C-alpha cells in the first residue's frame, strides 16, 4: 500500500477496536490496583499496614475484592424504580470510560482524533452526572435522594470554574485538541502551562476533586451524614460499577491535568536541555509518571483534609473559584496580547 493512502474501512475499524481493547484493559487493571494502592497508602498514613493477607504483600487483594463483589447478592429494593436503578451505575461507568477515547496517550496514539477533545470531555462529564442523580432518585430512599441532590448541585457549581480554567488553556493553545495543547505549551517560553496559569491550575485541581466526588468534597456520599449517599441501596457488582467509574474519572482528571498543565508526554524544553537523558524516556512513560503523581495526590488529600460543610463547598465554588478562574483567563489573554 502506498504511503498516504487511506486504509480500507474494515482495517480501520479493526485498528480502532484493538486500541479500545488496549486502553480498556490498561485502565481497568489500573483502577483495580489503584484501590489497592489507596488502601496501602492510607494505611501507612494512618500508621496501619493496609491489606497484606491475600497473596504476597496483599497484591491479590483487588482480585479477592472483585470475586466478592461479583458473588454478592444483587438486591433491588422494593421501593426502587427498577429500570432506572439498574441503568444508573452503567451511565456513570460508560461516561467515565468514553472520556478516554479523546485523550491522547502518545503523540500518535488516540482512539478518536477529534478537534473538540476538551469540549467533549466536559460534555461527557455533564452526562455522567445523570447516573449519580438517577441512582439517588431511583433507590427510593431519602438518604440516596439527598446524596443525589447534593451531587447535582456540587457538579453544577464546580463545572463552571473547571470549564473557565480550561478556557485559559484553550485560549493559550488556540485549539480544543489535546495534542495541540501539549505541542503549544512545550514550545512556549515557559515550557509548561502551570507557570503562566498557576491560578487556573489550582482552580482545576480543586474542581477535579469535586467533580470526581473525592475527599474533601465527597459530600454526596458522606458516610457520617448520609450513610453512603446515592450508593446506600446498591450492593454487589452494581456498587462495584460506581467505584470503577469513580476511579476511571480520577484517571481522566489526572490525565487532563498532566496534559493541559504539565506538558503531557513531553518535558519542558528547559528541563530537557539541562538533563538531556530525559529525552530518552518513552513519551507514554513520561505521561504515566505524571498521572501516577496526581493519583497519589488524590489519595494523599483524602488522608489529609477533613470534609467541607455543604455551605462552605458552595461558597468556595461561586465566591472564590469562579472569580479566580476569570482572573486566570484575563492573565492568559494579556500574555497572548503581549505575544509571550
Amino acid at each position, binding site marked *: 500500500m502506498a504511503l498516504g493512502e487511506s486504509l480500507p474501512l474494515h482495517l480501520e475499524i479493526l485498528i480502532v477496536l484493538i486500541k479500545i481493547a488496549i486502553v480498556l484493559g490498561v485502565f481497568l487493571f489500573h483502577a483495580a490496583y489503584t484501590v489497592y494502592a489507596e488502601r496501602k497508602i492510607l494505611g501507612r498514613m494512618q500508621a496501619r499496614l493496609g491489606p497484606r493477607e491475600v497473596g504476597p504483600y496483599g497484591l491479590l487483594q483487588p482480585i479477592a475484592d472483585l470475586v466478592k463483589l461479583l458473588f454478592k447478592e444483587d438486591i433491588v429494593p422494593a421501593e426502587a424504580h427498577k429500570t432506572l436503578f439498574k441503568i444508573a451505575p452503567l451511565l456513570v461507568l460508560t461516561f467515565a470510560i468514553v472520556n478516554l477515547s479523546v485523550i491522547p496517550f502518545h503523540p500518535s496514539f488516540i482512539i478518536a482524533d477529534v478537534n473538540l477533545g476538551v*469540549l467533549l470531555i466536559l*460534555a461527557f462529564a455533564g452526562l455522567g452526572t*445523570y447516573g449519580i442523580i438517577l441512582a439517588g432518585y431511583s433507590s427510593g430512599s431519602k438518604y440516596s*435522594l439527598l446524596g443525589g441532590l447534593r451531587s447535582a448541585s456540587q457538579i453544577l457549581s464546580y463545572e463552571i470554574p473547571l470549564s473557565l480554567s480550561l478556557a485559559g488553556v484553550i485560549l493559550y493553545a488556540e485549539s480544543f485538541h489535546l495534542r495541540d495543547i501539549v505541542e503549544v505549551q512545550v514550545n512556549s517560553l515557559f515550557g509548561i502551562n502551570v507557570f503562566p496559569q498557576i491560578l487556573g491550575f489550582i482552580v482545576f485541581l480543586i474542581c477535579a476533586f469535586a467533580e470526581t466526588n473525592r475527599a474533601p468534597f465527597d459530600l454526596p456520599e458522606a458516610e457520617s451524614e448520609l450513610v453512603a449517599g446515592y450508593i446506600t441501596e446498591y450492593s454487589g457488582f452494581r456498587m462495584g460499577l460506581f467505584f470503577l467509574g469513580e476511579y476511571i474519572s480520577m484517571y481522566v482528571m489526572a490525565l487532563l491535568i498532566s496534559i493541559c498543565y504539565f506538558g503531557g508526554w513531553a518535558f519542558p524544553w528547559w528541563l530537557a536541555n539541562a538533563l538531556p537523558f530525559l529525552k530518552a524516556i518513552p513519551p507514554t512513560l513520561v505521561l504515566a509518571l505524571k498521572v501516577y503523581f496526581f493519583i497519589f495526590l488524590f489519595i494523599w488529600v483524602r488522608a489529609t483534609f477533613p470534609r467541607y460543610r455543604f455551605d462552605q463547598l458552595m461558597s468556595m465554588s461561586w465566591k472564590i473559584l469562579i472569580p479566580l478562574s476569570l482572573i486566570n483567563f484575563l492573565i492568559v489573554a494579556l500574555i497572548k496580547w503581549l505575544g509571550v
Partner: protein
Amino acid sequence: MIERAISLLIISSLFFFFLLLTYYFRHFIYQFLSILVLMVLQGVLFLYLNAEFLAAVQIIVYVGAILIMFLFSLFLFPEEELKGIKTDVSRISYKTFIPIGLLVLLLVISLYRAVPENYSKQEFLSDIKVIGNFLFNEYWFLIYLLAFILSLPMVALYIFFRREDASRNN
C-alpha cells in the same frame, strides 16, 4: 450521500419516538428522561450538520446544566405528585396554536420563495453554516419576527401565573 440520508432518517425516527414517549409516560421523571434524550439527539443533529462546536455546547449547557436544574426541581416534589400524570387535551386553548400557525405560515412563505440560485442545494441540506448564512442574509426580518412571536407565550405564561397568584391572595 446515501449514508447521510440514512443517518438523518434514523435521527429523525428517534426524535419522533422519544417525542411520543414524553406523552406516553405517566411519570414526570420518565417524561423528563425522554426530553433529555431529545436534547442529546439535538446535539447529534448538530454533529450531522457539521457544527461540532454547537453540538458540544448543546450537550454541556442544555443537557449538562439546564436540564440538571430541571431535574433538581422535580426532586423537590413528593413522589405522589410526580406519578399518574394525565394529559388533559380539553384544557389546551386554541390560542396556543396561534404561534405554531404563524410559524407554519412563515415556513410556507420561505418555501414559496425557495432557495436562491447562488446557494448550492447539496450544501444547503447538509451544512449548518450555509443554512445560517442563508437565513441571516435572506430572512433576517422573518427571524426577528419569529423570535418575537416565540417570546409571546413566555410573557403570556408569566401574566397567567401572576393573575392566578393575585386571585389566590384575594
